Each structure stands twice: as C-alpha cells, then as structure tokens.
C-alpha cells in the first residue's frame, strides 16, 4: 500500500512474531482465545479476559468500522489516526489511508490494507470501503 509518510517498523517480539510473519504474506490475523472464544487487541500470549494461555491466531475478515479518528493537521504531511472496531470484536489503533479527510466519519466502514514500513514487516492499516 502506497503512503509517502515514512512508517516506522513495528516492534516484533516472541509474542507477536507469528502476526508479523502473516503480515508479510498479506494476511491479517487476530488473537483468539479458544478457552473463552473472545478475540482481543493488542495481541498477547495470555488472554486478557479469561487468563487462558490458549490463544491462537485466526484469519480475520479485515472488516471494521471507525470508532474514532483525528487528522493530524500539524504534521508536515497530515495523516489520519483512528481506532477501528474489528468485525471480530476488539477495537484497535491504526491509520486510515486513501481517504478524503473531510469525509471521514465515525461508524464508517473500512477494510484492512497492509502498509510498508521503513525496515520491518508491513503494518495493518485501513481504508474506507
């Protein structure tokens, strides 16, 4: 996904390596606890809802709606940051790309797209559908 703003590489840890491996294959996965059935965000090895260690990566739909957003007008190249609520449940921080800043609205549907980073795996971002 093209963006001229330089995106810093994410911090990859042993807890999240599998997520970033999937991202390199353009697959968006979410951590789902098989004990309680809930997905959470940001991903961690221990379910924050039921404390189970039975967290598995599941292919996500990539569909979400905008929970809130803000356009960083003060930046040299303005960008839209936002929280989007995934179809799978949790709400995550992201950027909203390929959008008319003035047309963004809370509740608007978006879908995942991976954006290249400076020297790491691509990161999940979203664009209006």
């Amino acid at each position, binding site marked *: 996904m093209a963006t001229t703003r330089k995106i810093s590489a*994410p911090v990859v840890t042993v807890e999240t390596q599998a997520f970033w491996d999937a991202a390199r294959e353009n697959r968006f996965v979410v951590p789902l606890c098989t004990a309680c059935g809930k997905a959470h965000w940001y991903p961690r090895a221990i379910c924050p809802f039921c404390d189970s260690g039975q967290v598995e990566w599941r292919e996500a739909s990539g569909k979400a709606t905008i929970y809130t957003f803000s356009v960083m007008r003060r930046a040299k190249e303005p960008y839209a940051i936002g929280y989007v609520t995934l179809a799978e449940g949790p709400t995550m921080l992201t950027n909203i790309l390929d959008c008319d800043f003035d047309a963004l609205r809370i509740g608007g549907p978006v879908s995942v797209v991976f954006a290249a980073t400076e020297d790491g795996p691509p990161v999940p971002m979203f664009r209006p559908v």
Partner: protein
Amino acid sequence: MTIKGKAYIAGAYEHPTRHAPDKTVAQLHAEVALGALADAGLSRADVDGYFCGGDAPGPGPASMAEYMNLKLRHVDSTELGGASYVALAAHAAEAIALGKCDVALITLAGRPRSEGMATGTTPRLRDPNQPEAGWEFPYGLTTANGYAMCAMRHRHQYGTTSEQLAWIKVAASHHAQHNPNAVLPEVVTVADVVNSPVIADPLHRLDCCVISDGGGALIVVRPEIAKKLKRPLVKIAGAGETVKHLAGGTFDLTTSGAARSGPAAFAEAGVKPGDIKYVSIYDSFTITVLIQIEDLGFCEKGAGGKFVADGNLISGTGKLPFNTDGGGLCNNHPANRGGMTKVIEAVRQLRGEAHPAVQVKNCDLALAQGTGMQLSTRHCSATLIMERE
C-alpha cells in the same frame, strides 16, 4: 485505615520561572524544595521522607536526594505521569499515617521549553519493552492526536462542540489574567480558540496547554507538626488512584480514570461533589477537563459541554471555579506534568491566598484531579480532596 486527617499540606511552592535555560533540572528541584520548606517554616534538616516522580533526574529518588543532601527514612518515586504529584501527596499522607516519616518533601521540575521538546506533536517510542509499543508507534500516535480522538468520540456520542470546549480555555484565561507569571495572560474568546490553527481534529492550538519550564514542591507533615507551624491548616481528607487502559480492545474513550479515582476519594473524605468549593482539574487539553468533570460527578456524563459553556468554570460567577492560576492551559505546565501545580493552587485557595480576583469565598473544601500519560490509551488518574481546618 484511612489517611483522612492523618496529614496536612504545610508547604507549597510554585517556581516563578516559565523559561529556565540558565538552570539545570536538578537545580530547579532544589529551588522548589527550598521554596516549599520556607513556605512551611521548616528547614531541609526536618525532611525525612522524599517523594518524586519517575522522571526526576536519576531516575527515581537517589540522585535528587544526594543533590539536596537529604537524610531520609522513607522514599517513594511512584510514576503516574503528570498525575504523580497528586498521588504522591496521598502517598506522603499514607507514609505519615504509618509512622514512616514526619516531614515529606515532594518535588517536580523540568525544562521541556528550554530543551525544545515537541511535546505534543511528535510520536515517541518510549521503551520497546512496553508490550503495546509495536501496536502504537508506527501509527503516529502523539499526545495531541490521542486526546483529539477522545474529543472526536465525545462529540459523536454527546454532541460536544468545539465552541463548548473553547469555553474551558476562556475560563482559564479569565483566571490567568491575574497571574503575573502566566505564560498566556491574555483573556481569549471562544472565537479566538476555534479560529486558532487545528493541531489534530477537532483540537485547535488554543485547546492545548502551554509548554513551560519550572516546577513545584509540597511539604506534607503529621498533624502535630502542622499545628505548631504558622500556616493555615490544610488537611488531606481523601484520595483515590487508578489506571484506565484499553482493556484488550474493549473501551470507551469518553471516560477517564477519574470515574474510579474520584468516587474513592469522595468516599474516603466523606463528602459529595456538591460539597466541593474549588477544583483543580488537569488540563493538558480542554477535552481532558471536560471528561474529568463529568467523571467526577460535577455534571452528568455527556452534559459537560453545556456545563462549561454556561460559564460554570469561571471563579466568581460559575458553580465550579477551576484552575484559578490559569492552569496548564494558560499558566504553567512544568515538565509537561501538571499534577503538582494542581495541588498547589488548591492549597492557595484553601489558605485564602489565591489572587483576590479569583479567590473563592469561604473555600473550605477543594479537590485536585490529575491525569497522567495518554487519555486515549493508558492513563493514570489521581484524585485528592483537601479540607481547610
């Protein structure tokens, strides 16, 4: 076990500087410490407990204890961001109640202005071991656009307008005009705020706090000591603290930790929001104030916009006079940490030592509310209720 009545704030001092290129941070810590001790009528040798945030040069308490040559039997460097100093006043009371110290010194100082820090508009990777770091830093989360997302959501849920938020800056500026040390002493209008450049939608430049050097200090002592000193008696009546976070991706950005720390403080003090005569409310941005006054119960959730636009925050005319020093929005935000000055102005009000133009009549009960770190992700909240005896 309670801290109610177990400790008194005997000394309070705000450094007059707002720009200190000619001083070190350690020097500022020492200057505010000596200022607060002089205010209390105590000396350095009386201090046996030292409290600072995690940001004190060192970090933690050791370097500053050495620089100031303190002899200590209790230390605490709890790090709650800008809320630290509100919480540390309560921690000092706890330590005193337990007999761990008699005279507690709390200091804050910093020089973000001299150091040219782009405080609110530059993403900062603080520590790669923070588990959320990789999920936030790439997206350009800054202080400003984080708080802006809270404002945007509040607008969506409750219809809060930019003009309503602007009233918070207007009220702060009405107070700051009487403060000769304020960074922004000019009275501003709603139009001034909404016509200032947008930093991050929907927050404008004048929705943001100032960036200033400086600091402040408090002296908290046991009751027997307070009663021997010549200062008005400001008793610590109750406190609460918490962390509010994203809870695995299930959260509401229109509420803050004040919804939990506030009720805890009211319960300990045995008072209600309606009893409070003066409030210091952390004001990193206008939206920070709006959300906290709702969460503390000074108005219904979602009704904050109307409440502030009715002029309720202005001393002399409003129901809830706030930040009568001009607050972080207009006066001072030393070290990018506003909790210290929140407690200091509450102490001035309870002593009757605020500027006469903004002094609240018969001010016998005050609340200081601090919010530290990032409202839109994880933040610490501390509430402190103080009573004039």
